[in-house]
């Protein structure tokens, strides 16, 4: 069989890495949201946590974009983006589910925020919503990914 690089395999691995970076960014936004309501001492440590998660996410994303993607030829890039395999499918599913869950949560919490959380700054809610959306997307993606593993047949020839 051929020994050439399987671009679909590279695209899958990159999709996993990007989703991992999205999960780290969701933790960064959790820390940002918490910093809006925490006391001064805690804000200092939350700031450090934010930087750590952001740096980790960038360290994952940069290699994926720069030397894994930039090294591809025009034709290879087209093949890379034309992928319509399993990971593309679970990416779409995770996206639609995370949007739906986030919307339902927002609708549910709207009266609560009006009555009990009105004193919190808008940045708290913006950070919390971004964290929730990124978090639910990445968790659903990895759950669907694992589900695919659990039902596999063997790979014997």
């Amino acid at each position, binding site marked *: 069989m051929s020994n050439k690089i399987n671009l679909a395999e590279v695209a*899958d691995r990159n999709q996993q890495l990007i989703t991992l970076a999205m999960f780290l960014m969701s933790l960064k936004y959790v820390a940002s949201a918490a910093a809006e309501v925490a006391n001064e001492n805690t804000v200092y440590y939350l700031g450090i946590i934010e930087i750590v998660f952001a740096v980790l996410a960038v360290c994952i994303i940069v290699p994926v974009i720069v030397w894994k993607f930039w090294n591809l030829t025009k034709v290879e890039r087209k093949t890379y983006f034309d992928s319509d395999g*399993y990971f593309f499918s679970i990416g779409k599913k995770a996206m639609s589910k995370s949007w739906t869950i986030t919307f339902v949560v927002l609708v549910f919490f709207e009266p609560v925020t009006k009555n009990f959380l009105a004193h919190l700054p808008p940045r708290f809610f913006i950070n919390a919503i971004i964290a929730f959306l990124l978090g639910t997307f990445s968790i659903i993606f990895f759950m669907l990914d694992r589900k695919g593993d659990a039902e596999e047949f063997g790979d014997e020839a």
Partner: protein
Amino acid sequence: MNAKLENRIRVYRAEHKMSQSDLANEIGVSRKTISTVEVGRFVPSTIIALKIAKFFEVPVEEIFSLNDKED
């Protein structure tokens, strides 16, 4: 009616003495795509189905079929 897409990829792979990775490399998809199609978890696009059929040199209906029996 609850139609289910059945396939005989595993049979054809065995006949050609190929692993999932070998088939994935030949048609330009990931191994996970092949494995999830085999177990019926992922319904492939028409393009992937046609590529698989073309690789095994059989009509697509030889590999994929609809099972629309009710449970």
